[in-house]
């Protein structure tokens, strides 16, 4: 039987890719799909033998702009078992082989793990473990549900392999930062165990990263909303009086955040942003505000105070310490495991280009992100409690109490109390809120009051 028929596969991908959750080009006019790389990781599939596996990089060309590239591990089998029917891509060539998304096939998922363990080099792709790591390749695998832009395969209770689907040249910041943090012994991240790295036009590109699976973890959002729910159910108690008080957790989270920032500053470059750079930062905030004002008229009453807040940043003369940061920091990016908080997903804001995501920035942006997340956690249930005016007061109280506790913990974990940089912190919080206003106006108009209310309080 012949090796993978790339043209046939490209034809199939034209219809299959746009149906995938992680496909970013929805709504764009797709012109064609080309298979740029197809690396065989097993013997070719035969009519009776085991299935074959290729790591495929497909380029999607659009009629309206730049191309995108996707990574797809493609399995090929003479007869696709029924349990894998949902992963079917289609019949290749004359129908001899069926192509399917190999992550769902436990047998082929194990091949990926084995290649990482072996440190295999296949064409331009190199698999490998981090120094000192040994892997157990006998663990059963499953695909973790619910992800947007990646696909994760969990092996036993031990490892999670995050496969990046839409790929862009450059080392993925998540791999880069957790690797650097692992090297300095940071306890608050899951340091990577291995990786799959390839080449795109001579530039390295991250295709996958293997990390410890944190089996008993719960994300911070679920934990925080447990606390908020408890507060809402009380008749007359304050946030510091109810059993579900979250401030202790917030303080520990603040501490962990400060330690991660300090470790990032230790492991990777840092700098001091000059007055001119502060002006440039304020300029960017202003540009985002202009765009938001054009899109959401409800924001207009706050335009002047917002500009005034940004002007304080522009007028700043002393330098601002900058470094690598998390970049997309909120309660959904932190996991509570038995004894500590663990920070996840250092990819930065996925919608922004890589060069922007890897820029040195003030760590106060992460602090601001978490403040906004506390605000959302406190308020997102309000929409369901329209007739309870007292709850707004409690939501404020909860958000304030936990923001303060977070900053207390942050101050203990570093030599800087974020509240000492009030103007900068406020500007970053406002910038996040402006972004949220645009997002909510577009996707969840009933939630628009959450960021608008926050802006009103922040500038009031």
């Amino acid at each position, binding site marked *: 039987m012949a090796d993978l028929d790339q043209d046939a596969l490209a034809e199939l991908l034209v219809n299959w890719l746009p149906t995938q959750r992680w496909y970013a080009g929805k709504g764009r006019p797709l012109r064609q799909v080309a298979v740029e790389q197809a690396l065989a990781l097993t013997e070719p599939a035969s009519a009776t033998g085991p299935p074959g596996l290729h790591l495929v990089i497909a380029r999607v060309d659009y009629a309206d702009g730049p191309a995108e590239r996707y990574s797809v591990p493609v399995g090929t089998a003479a007869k696709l078992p029924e349990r894998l029917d949902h992963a079917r891509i289609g019949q290749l060539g004359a129908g001899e082989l069926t192509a399917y998304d190999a992550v769902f096939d436990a047998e082929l998922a194990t091949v990926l793990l084995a290649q990482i363990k072996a440190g295999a080099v296949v064409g331009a792709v190199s698999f490998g473990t981090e120094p000192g790591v040994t892997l157990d390749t006998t663990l059963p695998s499953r695909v973790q549900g619910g992800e947007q832009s990646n696909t994760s395969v969990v092996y036993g209770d031990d490892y999670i392999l995050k496969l990046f689907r839409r790929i862009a040249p450059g080392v993925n910041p998540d791999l880069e930062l957790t690797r650097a943090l692992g090297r300095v012994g940071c306890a608050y991240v899951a340091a990577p165990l291995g990786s799959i790295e390839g080449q795109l036009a001579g530039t390295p590109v991250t295709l996958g990263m293997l990390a410890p699976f944190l089996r008993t973890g719960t994300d911070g959002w679920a*934990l925080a909303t447990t606390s908020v729910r*408890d507060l809402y*159910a009380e008749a007359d108690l304050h946030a510091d009086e109810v059993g*579900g008080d979250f401030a202790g957790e917030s303080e520990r989270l603040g501490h962990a955040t400060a330690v991660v920032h300090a470790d990032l500053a230790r492991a990777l470059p840092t700098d001091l942003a000059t007055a001119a750079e502060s002006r440039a930062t304020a300029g960017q905030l202003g540009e985002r505000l202009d765009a938001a004002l054009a899109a959401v008229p409800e924001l207009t009453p706050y335009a002047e105070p917002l500009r005034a807040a940004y002007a304080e940043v522009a007028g700043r003369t002393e330098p601002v310490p900058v470094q690598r940061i998390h970049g997309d920091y909120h309660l959904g990016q932190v996991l509570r495991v038995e004894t500590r908080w663990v920070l996840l997903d250092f990819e930065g804001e996925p919608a922004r280009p890589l060069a922007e995501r890897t820029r040195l920035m003030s760590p106060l942006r992460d602090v601001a992100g978490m403040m906004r997340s506390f605000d959302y956690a406190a308020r997102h249930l309000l929409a369901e409690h329209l007739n309870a005016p007292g709850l707004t007061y409690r939501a404020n109280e909860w958000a304030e109490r936990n923001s303060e506790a977070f900053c207390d913990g942050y101050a203990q974990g570093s030599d800087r109390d974020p509240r000492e940089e009030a103007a900068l912190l406020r500007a970053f919080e406002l910038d996040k809120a402006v972004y949220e206003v645009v997002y909510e106006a577009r996707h969840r108009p009933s939630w628009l009051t959450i960021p608008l209310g926050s802006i009103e309080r922040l500038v009031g």
Partner: protein
Amino acid sequence: MSAPAELTSPEESRDPHWYKRAVFYEVLIRGFADSNADGTGDICGLTAKLDYLQWLGVDCLWLLPIYASPLRDGGYDISDFTSILPEFGDLGDFVRLVEAAHERGIRVIADLVMNHTSDQHAWFQASRADPDGPYGDFYLWSDTDDRYQDARIIFVDTEKSNWTWDPVRGQYYWHRFFSHQPDLNYENPQVRDAMLAVLRFWLDLGIDGFRLDAVPYLFVAEGTNCENLPATHAYLKRVRAEVDRFYPDRVLLAEANQWPADVVEYFGDPDAGGDECHMAFHFPLMPRIFMAVRREQRYPISEIMTSTPHIPANCQWGIFLRNHDELTLEMVTDEERDYMYAEYARDPRMKANIGIRRRLASLLDNSRDQMELFTALLLSLPGSPVLYYGDEIGMGDNIYLGDRDGVRTPMQWSPDRNAGFSSADPARLYLPVLMDPVYGYQALNVEATTRSSTSLLHWTRRMIEVRKRHPTFGQGSYTELGSSNPSVLAFVREFGDDLVLCVNNLSRFPQPVELDLRRYERRTPVELVGGVRFPRIGELPYLLTIAGHGFYWFQLSRTED
């Protein structure tokens, strides 16, 4: 209903690991039943109630001190190690209690204080009067009060120093607890031999073991905190060797109110399967169960379970929700202690030393759902559960009684005079019975709750029975399962093919949870109380919904195709 336990007497069964599966019941002789109408419970009274305890499913009684004592510290101030406190009866009564218990398949262990005696003990009287006599070195004497300064003061509410001046001998004596409880001098070989003789005395009478009170403090040494010293462990090894040689199925339970990582030392050498105490109490677990339920999230429990070390093969934790002492908060951080005070001790009278003095029912505001959830956790987390007398019917407390007496009021047997506890004049009772409208004996008593099939008493009995059908609860491994819902604590107990999945909703609100049970694929969860078969486990996450403060125990049975 099947008989809860086999009726062979302990002498015949000789199971050296019985304590790993046993349900313990802590009973206050003074408060349980009064046979001679003097207002104080006694040994004969307890003997008369053994049928009730057998019916409940109790495997082992734990008695608080039964020895002669001036009773300035609830009997922990022993003035004669080989005689019974006269109010409780005599040695003949005690032997009859042990025999009657053994006939019902129930064992008996008792508190024994090895660290100190009462200042009324003949040894101390001789020691203070005659420094050069045979007892002159039985205690720790000093001309100054500045030795062992690194040892903390345990009863901070009442004591200022660990040294107290004795005007008779003209020296200071050492005491880690109250000043009327001088510490024995274990550097003296005669003390070590004398205490072994005390142990043998009771073992020869048929007792099944001891809870050794305050063991970390036996030996002292300058420059240390005088706790957990190597010499203390060496002596415990000697005690254990003696017990193993002559009394093979008896048990030693260490009372060491320390972190599990320190307590685990009291089990002894893991390679020998443990060669000091068979059991030790797990103190920090209990406050964290309270904290987890109040916070509606599992991490307080997960944290302490993760930081609990493995214990030697022949050892077991003793776990409890409440006991005769306050809810101890020594094993929590300052922040957590403030939190616990705020949540469970709103009235300052509810606090004592570093803890909260309340019973389970009143700590939980008499919430039946929570009492069931807490009891289910007690019966399913790793360790042998210790019930506190009266908690099985949901008894309350009286915070207006001094010290820790609030949780030591008479057992409520019936709506008769004195709650059926005693036929004495009510004014003569050692403590008044509870008469408040919620927990008062008129409505809340064994007789009434026995008649009501939906009572907490019947529920507790049923759960004990279920627990006993599954050795995994006593001997199985413990694996916590993750889930995205922080309010749900799920874990699997596994012992050979006896697999039990426990799912607990720590929140007062109903919760959904998706569990990854793939490693048990094709097994069928069978709910243990009702025997209801749930859908078979497949590849997909297993979805359960649980009522507020609800829980499930499932056996994971193999299924035929």
